[in-house]
């Protein structure tokens, strides 16, 4: 079986088995339930879902940190359960985690960025080139000699991204990278992610519960209780405000406002994503 997609899952099911102190099975929680999805190369994908919807567990499958209970996961044509591909998969699909402090290993920014290439056995000279180019790509080059402890959350998260880029991945999976950041740090991180997608053509999979970050995605998956409940372009997803609210997910404020205006009788289409769009629609009505 050969797959052309960057990432694809086939009836993926994952169960956490809870055990008591003697090791007897106490109960089984199904975190992911029969999920099949495809991510094409070069796409910007967003995965939405409230806490416990299985989105982080799903992300860890893309990087071969967790393995399916049933079904299979393919990364660039490689089955994650095939041990001989393990390190290739982890190199091709980089991962950014939520807490910036817990994923920075180096005591100096440049050393941390060099950690991945060091593990891959890249020659010293090339490590330096890769470190320089990846720090420049996220706009952190002037901080290369600093200790990570002196950086803000958003800066630390950008260093983490540089650390992943230095491994030359084809795909970056970001597991709620902005959850612990302030609004400015959040903007910087998302901007860096979008630039990588636009300029370098790296596939981005962004897991988040901030709706505003989803607007730019090519495709959105909405997860609930381990299932993929909805999928489509942001516009398609946000046209279904009622369904999203059923899944306990908010929508961007502008979308919500447009939705409420439409409900109270104005001729505004569903799926307004930006303020400019809403202004244009309102102008049309009141001309």
């Amino acid at each position, binding site marked *: 079986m050969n797959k052309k997609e960057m990432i694809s899952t086939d009836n993926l099911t994952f169960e956490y088995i809870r055990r008591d102190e003697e090791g007897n099975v106490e109960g089984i929680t199904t975190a992911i339930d029969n999920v099949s999805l495809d991510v094409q190369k070069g796409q910007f994908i967003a995965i939405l879902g409230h806490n416990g919807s299985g989105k982080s567990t799903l992300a860890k499958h893309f990087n071969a940190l967790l393995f399916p209970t049933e079904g299979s996961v393919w990364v660039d044509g490689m089955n994650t359960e095939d041990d001989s591909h393990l390190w290739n998969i982890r190199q091709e699909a980089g*991962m950014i985690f939520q807490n910036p402090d817990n*994923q920075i290993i180096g005591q100096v920014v440049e050393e941390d960025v060099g*950690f991945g290439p060091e*593990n891959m056995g890249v020659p010293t000279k090339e490590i330096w080139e890769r470190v320089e180019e990846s720090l420049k790509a996220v706009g952190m080059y002037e901080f290369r000699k600093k200790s990570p402890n002196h950086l803000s959350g958003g800066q630390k998260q950008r260093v983490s991204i540089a650390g992943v880029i230095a491994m030359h991945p084809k795909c970056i999976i970001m597991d709620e990278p902005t959850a612990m950041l302030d609004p400015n740090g959040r903007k910087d991180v998302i901007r860096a992610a979008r630039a990588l997608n636009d300029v370098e053509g790296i596939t981005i999979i962004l897991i988040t519960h901030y709706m505003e970050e989803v607007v730019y995605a090519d495709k959105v998956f909405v997860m609930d209780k381990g299932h993929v409940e909805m999928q489509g372009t942001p516009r398609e997803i946000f046209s279904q405000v009622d369904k999203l609210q059923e899944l306990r997910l908010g929508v961007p404020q502008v979308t919500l406002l447009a939705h409420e205006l439409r409900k109270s009788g104005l001729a505004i289409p569903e799926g307004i994503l930006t303020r400019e769009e809403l202004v244009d629609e309102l102008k049309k009505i009141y001309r």
Partner: protein
Amino acid sequence: MLRDITLGQYYQTDSIIHKLDPRVKIVTTLMFIVSLFIVDNFIGYIIAALFLIMEIKLSKVPVKFIFKGMKSIFFLLMITMLFNLFLTPGEAIIQIWKLTITREGLILAIRMGIRLIFLITGSSIMTLTTTPNNLTDGLEKLMNPLKKVHVPVHEISMMMSIALRFIPILLEETDKIMKAQIARGADFESGSIMKRAKALVPLLVPLFISAFRRANDLAMAMEARCYRGGDGRTKMKPLIYQKRDYIAYAVVLLYIVLCIVIGRILL
């Protein structure tokens, strides 16, 4: 504030000692300590002193800074010297009440004092001129031969450098937990020593839990970045001996030979 904590006591200057390979500095420090126990007469101590002065001059670290470290061992120094002074049997010089100072005691006390002071100064020059990171790297490289007898050298040095990286983070966390508990009425400051020690227990529990959680996260992040132990790993900043390192080794060798010849054989 806690973020600015400097581990060890690294002092940044632009000196030749700072630029030396950490392996050279570790070996030199060990050799210097050994030399202090080789020499047995005062000419030997003068040579050691000259060697120390040369190191201090070359390192460009202010002398005041070096002797700051001496404060912490002042008590130890005093106790050692006093015990040697009063409790060595031999020819009595002065007798005050029941305490006798003997000739042998006096010499031994001075000798001990000099040895201790030199020992501390010599090793603080190493820690003052080498970053903890560099020291770990140097130790890893030096202990490399131990790999043959299955000592996990790479793992030990990785643990050391991760510990160094997380100490400030955990300190900050301790501070946070402490403040959270003070806000809810915990008292860390008053009462007897026992009472204060007991008050720290509820602080340690959440700290340990959080440390384990961090360890788990970090392990996953390292695996995600292809970490698989020391095999097949390249170095971003490999340690390579330069000309100056060989010169330093030569100087140290000369010093040791001089110590043996003058301190043991000639006199």
